[in-house]
């Protein structure tokens, strides 16, 4: 490329309305593209941060969500006999037998939404130490009391400190609000597992069992022992973090695929915009092209100059789009997570990878949009181009 970059840069800078409209169009498309990736990443981040590396969750093999998993009392007892389960200082195993149900609550601004209610065992503070009460107190074991995640308190007017929620034929008092700093648990309501089991007539059946390993490195040997026990063959252990990561996959992939599909359709319009802008640039500079060619610049240089100019336009648009999308990080929204069938609150999250992909997307639009006009510029006949004046 022999044509100086400042030639390209200044041509890019001196252009007017059409260029700005093109940049705005590209910016809009890249904004949507980036936002979609940020949304999918935000969901992943939220769910991945929900589980811990040293907790193991046990579900029924056939179940693809916690609420469809069933573990009876005999199995719960067998699990307690497995090796490598961490113990409290008083000798109690750190295990939580958790019934998980879904209830309906009225959202801010009307409309009903599904909310996960999780029953937990008294060892819960050792199992999930990341849970912090920010208002009120812990529920009392043996009482129909609940604590709610802060994302729930924010979104559901009926789930405030001191208010009562009606379900399973009773009134449940909210006595505390907790946070896990943005994990999926923030979108749950927790209560005493035993109280919830009896309210839902589940006797001693729970949905999942989660336990803490004495050492995360012992997972393989725990798993071996688990598999070796034929009575447990319908059940499956999985690292808690991995479980929630898998739960995020379906929703985030769905959002990505749908979002990228939609933005690709938008991008056709933006790319055509870039093409039109570049065609007019080529037409306006025909004599210039003829002049450069007569001075000895070859076709490749001309092609490169116009292609790079087109890339400038779309990269500028892309940068604006990414910049605007980065403000979405301050927003948190909620969506129905169809892996758990309940509402999940999350924040848009930006990552270097997302920025790179968004720029690649912008560059692709510039390349595709600028290609035909650049080819036209490069193919011009010198004499004809010079006569165009």
């Amino acid at each position: 490329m022999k044509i100086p970059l400042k030639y390209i840069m200044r041509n890019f800078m001196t252009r007017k309305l059409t260029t700005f409209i093109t940049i705005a169009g590209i910016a809009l498309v890249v904004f949507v593209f980036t936002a979609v990736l940020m949304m999918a990443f935000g969901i992943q981040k939220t769910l991945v941060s929900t589980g811990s590396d040293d907790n193991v969750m046990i579900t029924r093999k056939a179940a693809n969500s916690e609420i469809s998993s069933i573990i009876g009392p005999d199995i719960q007892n067998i699990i307690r006999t497995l090796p490598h389960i961490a113990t409290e200082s008083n000798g109690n195993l750190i295990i939580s037998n958790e019934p998980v149900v879904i209830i309906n609550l009225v959202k801010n601004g009307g409309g009903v939404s599904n909310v996960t209610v999780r029953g937990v065992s008294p060892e819960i503070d050792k199992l999930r130490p990341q849970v912090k009460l920010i208002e009120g107190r812990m529920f009392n074991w043996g009482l129909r009391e609940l604590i709610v995640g802060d994302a729930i308190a924010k979104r559901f007017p009926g789930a405030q400190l001191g208010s009562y929620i009606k379900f399973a034929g009773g009134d449940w008092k909210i006595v505390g609000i907790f946070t896990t700093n943005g994990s999926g648990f923030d979108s749950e309501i927790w209560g005493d597992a035993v109280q919830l089991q009896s309210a839902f007539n589940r006797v001693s059946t729970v949905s999942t069992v989660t336990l803490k390993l004495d050492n995360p490195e012992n997972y393989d040997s725990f798993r071996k022992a688990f598999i070796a026990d034929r009575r447990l063959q319908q059940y499956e252990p999985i690292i808690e973090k991995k479980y929630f990561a898998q739960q995020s996959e379906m929703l985030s992939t769905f959002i990505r695929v749908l979002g990228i599909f939609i933005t690709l359709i938008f991008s056709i319009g933006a790319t055509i915009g870039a093409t039109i802008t570049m065609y007019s640039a080529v037409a306006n500079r025909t004599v210039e092209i003829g002049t450069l060619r007569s001075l000895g610049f070859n076709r490749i240089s001309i092609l490169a100059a116009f292609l790079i100019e087109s890339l400038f336009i779309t990269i500028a648009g892309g940068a604006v789009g990414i910049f605007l999308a980065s403000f979405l990080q301050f927003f948190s929204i909620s969506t129905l997570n169809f892996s758990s069938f309940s509402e999940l609150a999350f924040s848009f999250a930006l990552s270097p990878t997302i920025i790179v992909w968004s720029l690649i997307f912008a560059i692709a639009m510039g390349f595709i949009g600028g290609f035909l006009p650049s080819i036209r510029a490069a193919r011009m006949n010198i004499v004809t181009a010079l006569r165009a004046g």
Partner: protein
Amino acid sequence: MSGIIQVKNVSKSYWRDSIETSVLHDISLDIKEGEFTALMGPSGSGKTTLLNLISGIDKPSKGEIIINGADISKLSESALAKWRSTNIGFVFQFYNLIPVLTAFENVELPILLTKLSKAERKQHVETALNIVGLNDRMDHYPKQLSGGQEQRVAIARAIVTDPVILVADEPTGDLDKHSADEILLLMERLNKEFNKTIVMVTHDPHAASKAHVIRHLEKGDLIQETV
């Protein structure tokens, strides 16, 4: 001794919608090194076409064009581009400066194709602008210059590679009389002082009078030579 520019039995025709338009018919001419030639003739007689063939931006349909001993009608497109960049200096009627580049940058363009270092390029550009008397306008953009000044920048661009031949297509055609005289004076000087072989197309007899030889074209034929 044969000339630096030899046009041998050259014909040129254009095809449009499968109709052949013959623009130059069997033209032969010989221009000596250091000669200042004016090409005259009515509009459409083929002056620009002949100039384009000599300067290697167009190819003859028939015949040979031998410049400095090399048959340029046989060169490939890329070889021809390279050849142009070192052998020919172009001066256009409408100056054809790049509007987004300063005078300095415009003059620098042709030597970006050489291996000269940045410092060497600066020196060459300053020398060229010095010859045309515009080194105080180096950082001006074309639109900040008068027509005459623009044409002088264009001439500096044409001579910055120190080519043997300058081709000029109506270089004074767009200028007032005063500026035109300045440009003609400059052309004469480039011819005398720097020994440039110049081929200049012009409609203006006054401009043509500066040349050593005036050649007349009429409907694609070379009809007369005035010395």
